[in-house]
């Protein structure tokens, strides 16, 4: 008995919606096999259905809820999280996470989590209420309880509470980090390092507590921050976008200048801008960005000037450009890379 097209369209949809019975599934299957047009019609409807389901599922899944559901079903007790874990990095076949990740600027419900590979490069220590996030060999990007995001450079540690209760959001930083802080007028976001307090007023900025000679550097990208000392006496200073604050902890001094270094975020963005910088400076920034050990042979070579922009290129690629620009030799040794030659003479 010939049935008309609408019957089969209904049948396709019943199947996709999971409503089709055993017999109907068989019927659909033979109908599809009978004619390639039928197969095509099936696929078209399926494609639409898949797009709808994908979108719906995307909206409906709460990954934190799902994780806590499954966590309670794991055999190991929760107390395991209270121990010190050290995850050993494995040599990956795939390239580093950094090169693929797009910039995360949505400060809403989207979860910010590390990418796919199995190896982990951070240590996660849970004391009763405090979380310690540490970046070892690779950058670590994480989300804080209020939705703010932080990117830690290697060797940096951030301590923060499991939840921001109380009247402020306080975290403690050792090292270098880039923050994107969500707005919350009722709860200021405060970063502490030693006795310096950086109060954030809804913003994105960079902090470096590491610079030599007991200095701390803060560069502001957007928003506003207030820098102060813990003593309640020393005058606090505001920082505006594009400005850099250098804080000398020993002398309790805050010095504010316009940030002239376009490469302060190169470690995170892999974007470097050189405008008539000398090779010595360029190499210093390359070392910082790529964690390489490049040395320039002593002499006039280090004073050769470079003007170039590198955006998310590999170190190899950058070195090739340098080689094409200057008359240099690049030698790779066990301990690093050596640049020698006439340079610009």
């Amino acid at each position: 008995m010939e049935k008309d097209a609408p019957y089969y369209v209904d049948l396709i949809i019943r199947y996709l919606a999971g409503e089709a019975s055993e017999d109907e599934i068989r019927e659909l299957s033979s109908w599809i096999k009978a004619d390639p047009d039928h197969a095509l019609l099936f696929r078209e409807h399926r494609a639409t259905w898949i797009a709808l389901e994908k979108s719906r599922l995307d909206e409906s899944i709460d990954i934190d809820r799902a994780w806590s559901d499954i966590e309670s079903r794991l055999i190991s007790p929760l107390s395991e999280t209270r121990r010190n874990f050290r995850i050993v990095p494995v040599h990956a076949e795939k390239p580093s996470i950094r090169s693929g990740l797009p910039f995360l600027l949505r400060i809403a419900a989207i979860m910010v989590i590390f990418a796919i590979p199995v190896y982990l490069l951070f240590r996660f220590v849970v004391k009763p209420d405090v979380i310690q996030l540490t970046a070892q060999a690779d950058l670590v990007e994480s989300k804080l309880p209020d939705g703010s995001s932080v990117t830690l450079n290697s060797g940096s540690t951030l301590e923060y509470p499991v939840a921001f209760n109380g009247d402020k959001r306080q975290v403690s930083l050792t090292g270098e980090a880039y923050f994107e802080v969500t707005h919350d007028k009722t709860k200021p976001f405060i970063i502490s390092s030693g006795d310096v307090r950086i109060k954030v007023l809804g913003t994105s900025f960079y902090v470096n507590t590491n610079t030599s000679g007991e200095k701390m550097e803060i560069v502001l990208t957007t928003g506003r921050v207030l820098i102060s000392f813990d003593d309640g006496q020393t005058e606090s200073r505001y920082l505006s976008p594009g400005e850099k604050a250098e804080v000398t902890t020993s002398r309790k001094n805050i010095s504010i200048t316009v940030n002239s270094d376009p490469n302060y975020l190169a470690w995170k963005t892999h974007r470097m801008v050189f405008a008539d910088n000398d090779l010595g400076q360029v190499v210093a920034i390359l070392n910082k960005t790529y964690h390489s050990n490049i040395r320039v042979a002593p002499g006039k070579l280090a004073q050769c000037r470079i003007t170039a922009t590198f955006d998310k290129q590999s170190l190899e690629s950058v070195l090739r450009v340098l080689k094409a620009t200057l008359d240099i030799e690049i030698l790779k040794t066990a301990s690093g890379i050596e640049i020698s030659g006439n340079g610009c003479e």
Partner: protein
Amino acid sequence: MQLLHKEAFEQLFRSHYKGLCFFAMQYVKNDETAKEIVQNAFISLWEKRDSIDLSRQVKSYLSTSVRNKCLNHLRDNRKFDNDLLNLEQLSPDALYEQPDRLVEAELRDSIHLAMEELPEKCREVFRLNRFEQLKYQEIADRLQISVKTVETQMSKALQHMRLRLKEFMVPILLLFLLHAVALFYSLFSTYVSG
């Protein structure tokens, strides 16, 4: 051999849970079942953690595990048809990778807009089936209409969505066209030789 610690496991879960749920959903066509299956797959992984070598592809292990559980579920519920599943081209590698957030957002908006355009009853039927995951009979009961009406409304809704979401679908259709041709050819040769 690197073993699986809880933090690594959590990262795996957070990276793959959604993609695997979507993958499972294509087989079992039901949210709750899909989530249950994926959770079970992760739990099996956790239980075997001392013997799993992480230098292998854990992702494939998980997707294969999910796929097998889905097929078992379909067989147990007698909803299994080999030909149809082949037609759906469900391969364990077809996972939801790093989604393009911009496209996802656009798609979501287009879907919401398209739904607004549906006549009220049609939209309600579609919404109940899709968002509240109600079966046709349950929708019929709730809205006091016949199952046949529910079917017709679903059909109408999907046709409309198909039109509206066409721009998101073009590359998929092209691929399907090729598959359809290949399928026809293989079926034809089966008929001829069989």
